[in-house]
């Protein structure tokens, strides 16, 4: 239990994940209310900082996803105005949100992550990236997964199955961010491990019902995906997944809470880290609440522990 009484829940905003954030925020708000806090809720917009300065909350609960909320922007600004906040600090947010940076750091640290290439939109023209597409194809081979470097919820993620499909997939991904990551496709099982207070929670497996991969639709519709938690893995694989999640959490400097997505390669049996999310979703279909529940931590307690992270930095 913290001494804080007035909690400002920051949600919504102008990112592409706005509606998901509104749902995460609303659920955090109800939980905080049940826990006896004095809850203020702010839909992040041009008035946000003025509103925060005026209402001077004891702490900010960050339920913003995507641009400005997850990329270190709001975290840095909250430090500037002296409001403690939940979750990771600005540098960790930047390292996690930029998938290219996160993957380079993982590679350097020897944490397995699917091989990849990354470049900025400007380099397509300025440096003539077209000339390197052949090398990318040879190195990663088809199919490839093309992702905007900093976008959550699988928005803008495309498959490229041939040389013809690659350029449009790159252009499509670049609509969501100025940087693109092209990754070797790993067929296998979709896993997620959340870390709370430096402790790895049970592994969740997401099994999509129909689609090619775990896409936006199935992420946020109840019934579109079957979640299994704890995932049916042998002990060694479970331990390895949790260990990797903790390693990445430490490597990227996360604080309080983070969720790491992994693939279990169906051919090699190897576990590979895809990315880490610093503001994991809290919706009904999100994986963090599910994992916490499997660990015997109910939703209110989860929210309370995330809140406490604001004061242990």
């Amino acid at each position, binding site marked *: 239990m913290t001494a804080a009484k007035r909690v400002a829940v920051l949600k919504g905003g*102008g990112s*592409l*994940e*706005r*509606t*998901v954030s509104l749902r995460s925020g609303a*659920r955090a708000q109800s*939980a905080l209310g*049940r826990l006896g806090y004095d809850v203020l809720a702010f839909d992040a917009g041009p008035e946000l900082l003025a509103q925060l300065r005026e209402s001077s909350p004891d702490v900010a609960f960050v339920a913003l996803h995507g641009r400005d909320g997850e990329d270190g922007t709001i975290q840095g600004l909250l430090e500037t105005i002296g409001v403690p906040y939940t979750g990771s600090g600005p540098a960790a947010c930047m390292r996690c949100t930029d998938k290219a940076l996160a993957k380079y750091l993982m590679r350097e640290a020897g944490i397995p992550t699917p091989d990849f290439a990354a470049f900025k*939109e400007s380099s*397509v*023209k300025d440096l003539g*990236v*077209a000339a390197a*597409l052949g090398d990318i194809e040879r190195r990663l081979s088809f199919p490839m997964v093309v992702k905007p470097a900093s976008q959550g*919820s*699988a*928005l*803008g993620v495309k498959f490229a199955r041939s040389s013809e499909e690659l*350029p*449009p997939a*790159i*252009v*499509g*991904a*670049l*609509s*969501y961010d100025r940087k693109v990551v092209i990754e070797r496709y790993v067929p296998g099982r979709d896993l997620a491990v959340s870390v709370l207070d430096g402790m790895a929670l049970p592994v969740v497996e997401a099994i999509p*019902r129909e689609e090619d991969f775990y*896409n*936006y*639709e199935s992420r*946020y*519709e*109840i*019934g*579109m995906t079957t*979640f299994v938690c704890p995932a049916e893995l042998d002990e060694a694989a479970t331990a390895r997944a949790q260990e990797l999640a903790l390693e990445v959490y430490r490597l990227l400097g996360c604080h309080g809470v983070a969720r790491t997505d992994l693939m279990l390669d169906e051919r090699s049996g190897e576990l590979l880290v895809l990315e880490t999310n610093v503001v994991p979703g809290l919706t*009904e*279909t999100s994986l963090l*609440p*599910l994992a*916490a*529940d499997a660990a015997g931590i*109910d*939703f*209110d*307690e989860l929210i309370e522990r995330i809140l406490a992270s604001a004061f242990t930095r």
Partner: protein
Amino acid sequence: MDDRRRARATAHELARYEALFAARTRGMKSSAMREMMALTERPEVISLAGGLPDTSTFPPALYAKLMAQVAAESTARALQYGPTEGLASTVRCIVQVMAAEGAVIDPAEVIVTTGGQQVIDLVCKTLIDPGDVIVAEAPTYPGAVPTFSAYQADVEQIEMDADGMPIDALEETLDRLAAQGRRPKFIYTIPNFHNPAGVTMSLARRRRLVAVARERELLVLEDNPYGLLRYEGESLPTLYSLDAENGSSPGRGGSDMVIYLGTFSKILSPGLRLGWAVAPRAVLEKLNLGKQGGDLCSSSMTQLFVAAYFQECDWMGYIETLRALYTRRRDVMLAALAEHFQGRATWTRPQGGLFVWATLADGVDTTDLLARSEGVAFVPGRAAYVDGRSGSSSMRLNFAGVPDQDIREGIRRIGRIMGGDTGLLGTLTGAGAGAPPASAPAARTAASEPAPGEGAVAPAAAEPDTSHDENVPLADVVALPRREAQQRARRQRDL
């Protein structure tokens, strides 16, 4: 501890509800696209995405007067339930609108509904079992897609061209289905100023569609929200009246195969939530039962408003006002498209209605474009396809509900982003500035060509040609994507 228990329950809500949901909810999806559409509701965004008419043209004083009149003269009725089929006074208004569309109907064959959308829902509720086939146009009305999905229909979409749904392609589809022992429950079509495609079905195709429906005993759902919003060219008869001519009681309504969908949304106000269906008696009875289960009856208050409006006002005069306004806005949009999209896209030139359908270079995904677009919104083409994938390089643009300067600025913004996208693609593929749409010929400046009245007998052929329909603009609408391989052969037969 009670709160604690409740919290525990919420943590389990995922699994708890999942077990309770009906199988059909699996077909009900939210989408990344809708997520992005939510973002476009911010005030600084120019939205060309809505299906909106311009309600600001309705005189406030008149609205106040009519509401006051309904309140004063019909308090008890306005506040009461009404008959499921609708108030007789409202049905009389519908008879007038239908007459203006050139259709004579029997008031007993009308059911008043809660918007035209309810007709689509009721028709599916009445006719569709899971797995049943609906034949629709490609693209089709984006608002029908979730309804079809919710009823677990198997939707066959038929690619349109400048004259609407090609009936040869329809027959091929019907034959293919028949070979599998399947017969569609109904054919869904928007013959006038298609939403979203902007095209109009030619008279020849209308006649053939009705003949095919009679021959094969298939119902047709004719969705006609904009028929009276024609800005140029001759009005064409409704499928309903074409079928009724062959019916058992010509001249007194009585279409056997066509269910007609009409609405006050586009000629008066969508806020009223009033539409209607005109249907064969046997079907009507089932629609009525379905509506009883759905909402008992549509709002008495708004039905009385419509009745008062038709009695007191020059409703055709108001439609004239809308026509003049929308004609100008359409022209503003077409001019803006010519300025900002030229050479990089093709688009339709609607003779009426609310929408232009633009198709960009292959490989440009308009859903992604929406993510990139700053301060402008449109409906990505995928929304008009049941598979959620086709139509990805097209977009629907609304001109009717948007002021002139916003149309110009909105199109300019899309053009700018599009330019960046195609330029990038060109650089990556080594194709220079990006290839224009592969399947579509360069956009004709249709304005400079005379508008042929009805498809086949257009007098102004682009060049002399004895096959009389080969090079003639079939309607003054530029090309939708066409299936090139089959095109020539089909054109010869299809009219």
